[in-house]
């Protein structure tokens, strides 16, 4: 399609920034995996919690953030920068922006590596970094976006290849997710409260958390697969049509699946069901990506024997298929009741992170290094060794976690012969999975060993060559051959009309009151039939429209944004905009007293949520073990929510008043004294430090701003209240021959723990309750008219 008369000019690609990102990814890969192996070992050997800044609770966020943002982030940027320049036949948009992007991102990583072990945390998974770093991330991401879209703007290739579709989806969606989930009001330079609380926070967090997996760990890597796999295999992509269908269904459906992290919790039923069914519907679109990867190799399977790059890519795509089959399975509420909070989820995540991301990264780097340094790979046998030890490492890891998760889940559900009590204590189940947690360390260690072998191999490769920037003679694209589509052509056409119309009817089915809902469903079916008929008659014009869309990056980006924004809007707006009184069910939590609030912030900063949930699910074994199931209102003032996602220790939703203060004291000083063979880190350091009195008034002021109905109190009053409460606890301790200073962090966190689960019946408090975030329309909540959602 390129004009033959066009002038050719030599263009030098910016491969330097690709090399930089690649090396950063390799190095941070080592860091992330080392941290992983270390914290996995801590689970069996509590002695490895060597210092307060090396406890599991503080290092686990370091591991996850390093793996996601430092390792995969840098790998993604390397792949995107390399392939985008070639697919657009031009140099990256702007060299300064490329530089700012690279160095800014590395600075962010360094800042994260310093702040997380110091216990500076927002207390939400993969969103732990404190607000100044959040702003830096958003700014650097925008720099990346501007640089990328500048490249698209000046491209010399009129049509956008499928890899670029995925990059576009990644850039706009991550920006949206990251910004919304990090909206906060600062209370100091290092601390802030997120604007959402309780269920709203839970919903937004997992809309973000799940789609961090989707749009940070999946879509950019699929784009990388679409470029580098056919390149390495030297075969055509299996199916262009599959690319279209799986891309659009993937980006549209993925956003809806977040609530599957909150199944069987107090989350409103309609959201749970949407999360579950959209996850199931997501199975096929995910496998579309796998098929296009695997089947591209048809006719070139022999390369699997000889080319390590192909080995890594194919294994990665296979792990992707495995993980995306497991994901929908785990999203089924019945399966989830067993698997959630257990190691099964950990195994699932790592078959994605190690198998899909880790092996895609390895394949990419083995392919890139010889090209970027103009040389040959130093050693194929070493790469093969890496492949095999990595594969066995992942399998060992994943299988150990399957067994561990299922076994612990079943043990936790076992009841005594008369069916009236739990058969196993939590500690019993922990002892049972210890050998499997050991195997996990070995599996992870094998993967790390393979990675280090890769480092040596690539180091030798790099040493044997010199940095090389590719220069190509490129025909300059003449103006007017692309990017000519107007608003009308973008939005007024058959494919879009039928899609939007059908979706509106489907939403009517979900949201309309009983009676009208079924009518809307019937209309949707009829409309869908009409759409199929229309498509059969005019499929050529549909295909032509799409071809044209591919020549127009802005309309394409706008439509992608529309596709990804819908799910979030529909799930989140009803929950965050209604008067929060509607979100409380029959109970509302008692406000934290100043000392308890100080304790809560310590709980968050120590990362207790990494091992303890605060959510008793609507499941009989949960209720038998931990008490009455949690109501929405019982965490409505929690900024951030602390429902948790993993129970390495027991649930704490009703911990308040279940044990003596002195038990908590002994347990914090040395967990093994009260819970023999526990693997919890000791928190004796909390005894030495005074809790933060200075910022308490500011914190309470911010919470008031966010709708938590604290009475007006001045700063002295708040500090005095906190101190008096501390003195009371310390005085009580004296009787048990325990001497603590009344203003220490340990006293504060015990006060907080003893508060957990205290509530008022809702009738008494409704009038005092704050309003939701103002919104012009009053949204419909489907649960209001459905018996399946009745809670009491």
């Amino acid at each position, binding site marked *: *399609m390129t004009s033959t008369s066009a002038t050719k000019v030599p263009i030098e690609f910016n491969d330097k920034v690709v090399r930089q990102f690649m090396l950063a990814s390799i190095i941070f890969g080592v860091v992330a995996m080392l941290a992983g192996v270390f914290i996995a070992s801590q689970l069996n050997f509590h002695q490895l919690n060597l210092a307060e800044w090396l406890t599991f609770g503080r290092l686990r966020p370091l591991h996850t953030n390093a793996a996601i943002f430092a390792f995969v982030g840098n790998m993604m940027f390397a792949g995107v920068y390399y392939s985008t320049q*070639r*697919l657009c*036949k031009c140099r990256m948009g702007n060299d300064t922006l490329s530089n700012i992007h690279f160095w800014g991102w590395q600075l962010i990583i360094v800042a994260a590596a310093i702040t997380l072990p110091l216990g500076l945390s927002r207390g939400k998974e993969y969103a732990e970094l404190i607000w100044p770093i959040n702003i830096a991330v958003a700014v650097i991401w925008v720099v990346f976006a501007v640089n990328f879209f500048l490249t698209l703007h000046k491209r010399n*290739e009129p*049509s956008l*290849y*499928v890899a670029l579709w995925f990059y576009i989806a990644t850039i706009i969606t991550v920006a949206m997710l990251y910004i919304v989930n990090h909206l906060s009001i600062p209370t100091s330079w290092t601390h802030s409260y997120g604007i959402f609380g309780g269920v709203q926070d839970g919903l937004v967090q997992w809309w973000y958390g799940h789609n961090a997996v989707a749009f940070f760990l999946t879509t950019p890597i699929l784009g990388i697969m679409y*470029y580098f796999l056919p*390149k390495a295999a030297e075969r*055509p*992509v*299996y*199916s*262009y*049509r*599959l*690319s*279209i*269908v799986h891309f*659009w*269904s993937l980006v549209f459906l993925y956003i809806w699946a977040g609530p599957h992290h909150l199944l069987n919790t107090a989350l409103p*039923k309609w959201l749970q*069901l949407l999360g579950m*069914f*959209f996850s*199931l*519907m997501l*199975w*096929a*679109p995910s496998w579309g990506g796998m098929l296009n990867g695997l089947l591209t190799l048809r006719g070139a399977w022999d390369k699997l024997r000889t080319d390590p790059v192909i080995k890594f890519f194919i294994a990665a795509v296979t792990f992707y298929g495995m993980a995306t089959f497991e994901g929908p399975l785990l999203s089924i509420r019945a399966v989830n009741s067993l698997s959630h909070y257990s190691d099964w989820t950990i195994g699932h995540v790592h078959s994605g992170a190690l198998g899909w991301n880790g092996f895609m990264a390895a394949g990419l780097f083995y392919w890139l290094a010889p090209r970027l340094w103009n040389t040959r790979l130093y050693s194929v046998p070493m790469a093969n060794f890496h492949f095999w030890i990595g594969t066995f490492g992942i399998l060992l890891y994943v299988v150990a976690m399957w067994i561990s998760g299922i076994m612990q889940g079943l043990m936790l559900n076992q009841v*005594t012969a*008369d*069916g*009236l*009590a739990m058969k196993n204590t939590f500690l019993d189940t922990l002892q049972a999975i210890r050998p499997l947690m050991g195997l996990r360390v070995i599996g992870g260690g094998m993967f790390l060993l393979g990675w280090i072998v890769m480092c040596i191999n690539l180091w030798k490769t790099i040493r044997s060559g010199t940095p090389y920037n590719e220069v190509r003679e490129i025909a300059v694209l003449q103006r007017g051959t692309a990017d000519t589509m107007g608003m009308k052509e973008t939005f007024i056409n058959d*494919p879009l009309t039928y*899609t939007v119309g059908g*979706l509106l009817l489907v939403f009517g089915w*979900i949201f309309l009151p009983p009676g009208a809902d*079924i009518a809307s469903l019937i209309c949707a079916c009829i409309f869908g039939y009409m759409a199929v008929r229309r498509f059969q008659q005019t*499929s050529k014009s549909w295909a032509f429209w799409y071809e044209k869309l591919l020549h127009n990056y802005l309309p394409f980006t706008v439509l992608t944004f529309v596709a990804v924004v819908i799910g979030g809007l529909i799930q989140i707006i009803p929950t965050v905009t209604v008067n929060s009184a509607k979100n409380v069910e029959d109970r509302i939590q008692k406000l934290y007293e100043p000392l308890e609030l100080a304790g809560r912030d310590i709980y968050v900063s120590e990362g207790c949520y990494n091992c303890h949930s605060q959510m008793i699910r*609507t*499941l*009989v074994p949960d209720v038998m*073990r931990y008490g009455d*199931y949690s109501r929405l209102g019982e965490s409505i003032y929690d900024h951030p929510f602390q429902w948790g996602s993993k129970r390495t220790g027991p649930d704490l939703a009703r911990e308040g*008043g*279940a044990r*003596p203060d*002195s*038990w908590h004291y002994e347990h914090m000083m040395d967990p093994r*004294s*009260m819970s023999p063979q526990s693997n919890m880190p000791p928190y004796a350091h909390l005894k030495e430090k005074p809790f933060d009195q200075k910022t308490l008034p500011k914190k309470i002021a911010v919470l008031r701003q966010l709708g938590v109905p604290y009475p007006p109190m001045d700063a002295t009053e708040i500090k005095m209240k906190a101190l008096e409460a501390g003195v009371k606890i310390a*005085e009580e301790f004296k009787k*048990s*021959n325990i001497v603590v200073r009344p203003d220490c962090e340990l006293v504060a966190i015990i006060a907080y723990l003893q508060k957990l689960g205290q509530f008022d019946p809702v009738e008494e408090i409704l009038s005092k309750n704050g309003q939701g975030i103002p919104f012009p329309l009053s949204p419909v909540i489907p649960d209001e008219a459905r*018996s*399946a959602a009745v*809670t009491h």
Partner: protein
Amino acid sequence: MDPNKPTSSNEPTLRDHVYDGIQEYDQKLPNWWLFTLYIAIVWFVLNWVFYYQLGFGSSDTAVIDQAMAEMQVARDKQMETITDKKLWEMSRDPAVLAAGKATFMTPGMCVTCHGTELNGMLAGAKLPGLPLDDQQWKYGGTPTEIFKIVRKGSPDITKGMAAWEIVLGVKKVSEVVAYVLSHHHEGEPITKAPDSPPAGGAAVAPAAPATSTTPASPVK
């Protein structure tokens, strides 16, 4: 959501356009793949309509409420059989004692606070629990009173013993109580601690008097 159906032939044709050397087949979608997508959609619709909209099946909380109610009935029935006399009898049954001792001595359970000798001491140091081998009982010393405190915990749990019924169940609690009773004699004198809650001990004591210096001082 794009019902993109194949148009004509089965032969995969290559698309004209080449992207940096990468070509694409213009090939129809695998049928089995399409069916997994369709089945998932149909499954969604059916479930939503029948379970959620038409209300077939029970809500999660209804299931729990029913299960818990049934358990309460069974528990009450078990409780009916527990009397002072029965517990003293159990304290003389070696099989019950063995079971009770095993539970008592399980790490993390009774032994953690009350010690292996039941004297609330470990190597000369005082443990959080009260001694169980003397005749002073803070919350009442009849077998059913002891039974109650093991089941439900002390009146103010933040200052005393935790509730064990959820963890152990009625049967094991009764065995443990029998084991404790085996260190005592039926009819021996029972004294109250100076800081015992007034009459019956059932009412929640706001805070124990703060002056106790006796060996049986408040639970640590």
